[in-house]
């Protein structure tokens, strides 16, 4: 008797148990609940700093969609985020923690810029096509390096890809100050602006990157869901050993997928330099690679959901840019709100996989 009482005492107040897999609609419901709670939490934050949360939220939404120009701005922010998130998705599906989207975007930008700067006499379509491919190759190679070392020596990919971000970033710095320095800008370190020939065309007032992004949503969706490659990626992601027993060439799959993951991020770099900035600068990625990781994860690696989340995040970013003039608040509000949303959704994901069990009463 005393023995069983002892056991009750030792059982913790709350314990965690695994849940059976739950339906998609329930998962969606939980995510929406998390989102709602995050918005409330953000509202409390705004209240605490003495603002009317309804007014602020309203301004954010209005600020992002109030005019044609604003909408174009929102879409412009969304393009690289969307493309890079899609790239990340491939790697993360394989549980290859590619934190290097930032570097892969940059490398794509560098490779594309090379042709934009030195081959701008080529016919427009051909030049852009070459830049597009160059961007893919640049980003792809930057993704392939860590994959090679991971498969060969088991080098930690998280840390490796992280380091490569900075090597890429300072390569731009090197090019800006050295070999690609714009001679017309005298002392100021800057790379020359692309000639109009090397600039991405506009469709409905925004550079064609948005169309590329939408096509990629479809391509990545099909690639993951309906191709042999996609199947192999998910098996490797579930268990490397299972994949091996099934006779899959895990090394090849890993390297191929990382090349593609990097290549897609490289496309984001290409559209940034040739569609948005018209030059290569240190801000070409500007943290998009990191945000893309959170977007991809938040969307549960589903390309269609990624599209929705990207639009949401871009709206937040664009909407917050008017905070300064409207409320005297910093545009950095978007970082805080993004963080709150992400923390809530990350934490709530727990309830799709586990449940808490309360300690039963004394009778048990």
């Amino acid at each position, binding site marked *: 008797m005393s023995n069983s009482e002892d056991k009750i005492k030792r059982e913790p107040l709350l314990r965690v148990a695994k849940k059976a897999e739950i339906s998609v609609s329930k998962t969606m419901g939980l995510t929406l609940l998390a989102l709602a709670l995050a918005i409330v939490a953000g509202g409390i934050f705004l209240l605490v700093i003495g603002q009317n949360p309804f007014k602020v939220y309203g301004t954010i939404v209005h600020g992002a969609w109030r005019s044609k120009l604003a909408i174009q701005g929102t879409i412009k922010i969304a393009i690289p985020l969307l493309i890079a998130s899609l790239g990340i998705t491939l790697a993360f599906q394989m549980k290859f923690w590619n934190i290097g989207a930032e570097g892969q975007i940059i490398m794509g930008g560098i490779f594309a810029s090379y042709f934009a700067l030195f081959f701008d006499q080529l016919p427009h379509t051909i030049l852009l096509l070459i830049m597009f491919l160059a961007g893919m190759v640049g980003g792809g190679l930057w993704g392939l390096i860590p994959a090679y070392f991971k498969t060969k020596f088991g080098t*930690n990919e998280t840390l490796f890809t992280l380091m490569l971000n900075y090597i890429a970033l300072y390569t731009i710095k090197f090019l800006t100050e050295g070999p690609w320095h714009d001679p017309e800008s005298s002392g100021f370190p800057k790379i020359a602006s692309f000639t109009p020939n090397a600039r991405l065309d506009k469709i409905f007032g925004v550079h064609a990157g948005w169309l590329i992004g939408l096509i990629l949503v479809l391509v990545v969706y099909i690639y993951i869901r309906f191709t042999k490659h996609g199947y192999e990626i998910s098996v490797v992601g579930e268990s490397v050993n299972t994949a091996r027993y099934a006779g899959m060439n895990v090394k090849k799959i890993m390297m191929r997928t990382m090349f593609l993951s990097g290549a897609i991020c490289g496309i984001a770099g290409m559209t940034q330099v040739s569609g948005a900035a018209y030059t290569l600068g240190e801000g070409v990625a500007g943290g998009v690679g990191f945000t893309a*990781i959170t977007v991809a994860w938040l969307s549960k690696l589903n390309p269609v959901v990624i599209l929705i989340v990207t639009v949401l995040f871009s709206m937040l970013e664009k909407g917050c840019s008017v905070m300064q003039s409207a409320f005297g608040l910093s545009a950095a509000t978007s970082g805080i709100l993004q963080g709150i949303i992400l923390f809530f959704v990350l934490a709530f994901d727990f309830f799709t996989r586990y449940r808490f069990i309360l300690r039963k009463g004394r009778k048990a």
Partner: protein
Amino acid sequence: MFLNFLFASIKAGTPLLFGTTGEIMTEKTGNINLGVEGMMFMGAFMGFYTGYHTGSLALALLAAFGIGVVAALIYAVVTVTFMANQNVAGLTLTIFGIGFGKFFGEAMIGKAGGSPKLSEEFMASISEKPLPVLGNLPVIGKLLFSHNPLVYLSILVAVLCTIYMLRTRAGLNMRAVGENPAAADATGINVTLVKYIHILLGGGICGLGGAYLSLINGGGIWNNSSVVNGQGWISVALVIFASWNPVKAIFGSLIFGAFSVLQFYVPKDVIVIPNAFYVMLPFLITTMVLIITSMKKSKEGSQPAGCGVNYFREER
């Protein structure tokens, strides 16, 4: 000249040492926190804000440490209790922390009507002055014993953390949790508690690194855009370079600090190396170290085995 260079290297390496020591404590308990940059930014703001209003160095450091702990607490709740992906949670903390620092930094500038400046008395409390007796020694006195007080604090923290990690029972428990949480759990260690304690402690130390950046590197003036500027990420790199040992991180931070100031000391008419190369060097070397340790397949000096994987009892 060379002496000045070494002196500047130590000064530049100190915030990295804080960040690295903090991250080592976190990673050794089996959680990789990529939010160092964010925690540092929050620490930088809180340290400056408190110093600006109270004029007390001790309170400023305490506040920076405190906000680091709070930031790490968010991370710990999300990853340890709610078992979310550590990489994503860390990156989120970076986004959040930078947003937090910039947001309140701008508000502080707005209130002060310009860049806020620390008081003369406060600056005196963090000025570089020779220590009694030791500071009067030739050469060494200037090089090692004439720093601002935070430099000594960073080394003290690093040494204490190493002793704690390698020479105490609690430290052993913590390393066991980081390497193999299931085995640690089986021996009766409270895995969750151990993780929480060290993640929080690590976050606090990172916060101190942020305070160093805003108080010392900023020269007493708040700079909203470039206060942290990637130092948090360099700290994460330095963890690898120091092979997860805070004492090695002391020397590592000196080397990384040296790289960051090298470009100002290399005679331009003798050697012409692009500036970008100096700043890239720490990352290149870290990558090499990462590859070499993985090639040697040595457990020693590589990332704790449990790092990045959340522990769930029923899955062991």
